[in-house]
């Protein structure tokens, strides 16, 4: 008897499951169809627009795709990427550190009060003013663009870390206080591990702001890098090169942001139920 029951139950469920599965499959297929339709439509519209207003001013996607290998062949492609990535590494790296330190300090109400206006100011002001201020003071020296990147980006990191601080497990903190655990040990063993996923999110959001302001600083104060190349191409009216630079770096940055960082975030924190979603 036992075997027949066991035998029948899964079969009955699998029929229902199969129906659901087929439904979901159809939905996925439909979604992909419309997604591809979207790509076809927008790329075609772009190509059409380019034909209408002239391919020299607005090159179509085909021409831009052809320009990228040309840029690679010219040898400037990878060196420009390297220059911009170095800038991002230094500037955003520093901004990230500053942002985390301020975020962790906000556990204390005093430091929270101290930094809150700076965070608000940084969030509401456009990157342009920090870029121009830094550059007019320090010129082409690295302090100029580092200042611009830090001032624009640190607040994004801070608010994400502060988000984590707000969600800290109060009971653990209270208990450690009650048992007289030192502040440093409390930070190291409760706060830092708890903050790890928030720091990762901060890294992702910070990066999305950081690379844009980095490119902007390169427009004003650099003789290499993506921003510089974009500016030069625009001034020489080589719009195909301009779009090739802009789009290739744009796709690269999106790839880093959406695929690399997001994937690794999910992998690192798979063990934490409240984070893995």
């Amino acid at each position: 008897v036992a075997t027949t029951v066991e035998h029948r139950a899964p079969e009955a469920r699998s029929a229902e499951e199969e129906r659901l599965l087929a439904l979901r499959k159809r939905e996925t297929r439909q979604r992909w169809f419309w997604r591809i339709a979207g790509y076809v439509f927008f790329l075609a519209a772009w190509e059409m627009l380019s034909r209408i207003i002239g391919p020299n001013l607005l090159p179509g996607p085909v021409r831009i795709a052809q320009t990228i290998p040309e840029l690679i062949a010219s040898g400037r492609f990878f060196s420009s990427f390297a220059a911009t990535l170095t800038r991002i590494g230094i500037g955003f790296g520093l901004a990230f550190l500053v942002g985390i330190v301020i975020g962790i300090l906000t556990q204390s109400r005093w430091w929270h009060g101290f930094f809150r206006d700076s965070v608000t100011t940084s969030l509401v002001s456009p990157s342009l003013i920090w870029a121009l201020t830094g550059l007019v003071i320090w010129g082409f020296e690295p302090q100029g663009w580092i200042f611009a990147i830090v001032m624009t980006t640190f607040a994004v990191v801070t608010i994400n870390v502060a988000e984590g601080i707000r969600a800290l497990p109060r009971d653990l903190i209270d208990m450690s206080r009650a048992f007289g655990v030192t502040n440093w040990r409390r930070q190291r063993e409760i706060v830092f591990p708890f903050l790890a996923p928030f720091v990762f999110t901060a890294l992702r959001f910070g990066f999305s702001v950081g690379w844009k302001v980095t490119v902007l600083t390169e427009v004003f104060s650099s003789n290499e890098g993506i921003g510089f190349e974009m500016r030069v191409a625009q001034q020489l009216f080589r719009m195909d090169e301009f779009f090739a630079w802009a789009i290739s770096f744009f796709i690269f940055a999106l790839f880093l942001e959406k695929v690399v960082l997001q994937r690794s975030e999910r992998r690192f924190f798979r063990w934490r139920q409240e984070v893995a979603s």
Partner: protein
Amino acid sequence: MATAVATASRAQRGLPRILRSPTTARILFPFVVLGIWYFIYYTLDSRIFPSPQQVAVFMWEEITLTSGVRYSSVAENLYVQFGITLMRLTIGFFIALIVGTIIGLAMGVSKKVDAFFHDWVMGLLAMPALVYALFLGLALGFTNVGPIIAVVLAGAPFVIINIREGVRNTPKELIDMARSFEVPQNKVTRHVLLPSLMPFFFAAIRYAYAVGWKGLVITEVFASDRGMGWTIKFWYDAHRAHGVIGYALFFIIFALALEKLVFDPLADRAFKWRPKMDAVQMAEGDFGGVQREGFLFIEDQEIEEGADTTVAKGGNF
């Protein structure tokens, strides 16, 4: 915990207690910044780096129109420049709001439309303003059209995403219940649909305005001969650091005033009907600023939606 803190702070009296209050820290902050400024002023070997007094004098003269600087024949002073930018921002903002609401509603209602637009909206959302600023400058010259298009391009994606989330978050069970009790459609719209859409719509407005402005000033640098962005570039090109810093401060004052005088009161009014939630957030001493509303609303979806909506949080130029 709360009581422990309360007794502890009550135990301290007089000066130490005042020194330890967060308000003191908040007041202290500008002075520390000023101190750092003076420090740089006295240590940096630079002929153009201004002292705080120089910048203050410059700003005062700009405000009172006694500096004697005439930028161009059309937009000769600070107020006209800011007015031009505000006008462009407002026009672009309304276009972004209309276009964004239509596309956002369609994406929220239909999965097909969502699949059609999704990747392109996300792409536009992540696109730096610099790219279209440089292009618009060449394509359209120094007119009002370029900057207005820049505002639309920067703001519309935020409207779309927030409206889409709003539609997806409408309380299905309330609508079902209204149907079964035969509540007329216009009443359902007014009492269920609109109130649930409201916070998302508000977040959309706030984001679109802030991000549109940031995109606009960059565009004005490359694609305009007037406006706020152009004016700060004017001082940069003239290599006058006091002008650049003075205008940077004007920008900050403008942005903060917009937050505190327009959006915060509007938020209070728009959410009067809602119980505590926002009040709690504010009482905790949340970092104010543009992000707050979006934070609140986009975060809920982050958990179920994963990747794409979260971009809005960090989206910035």
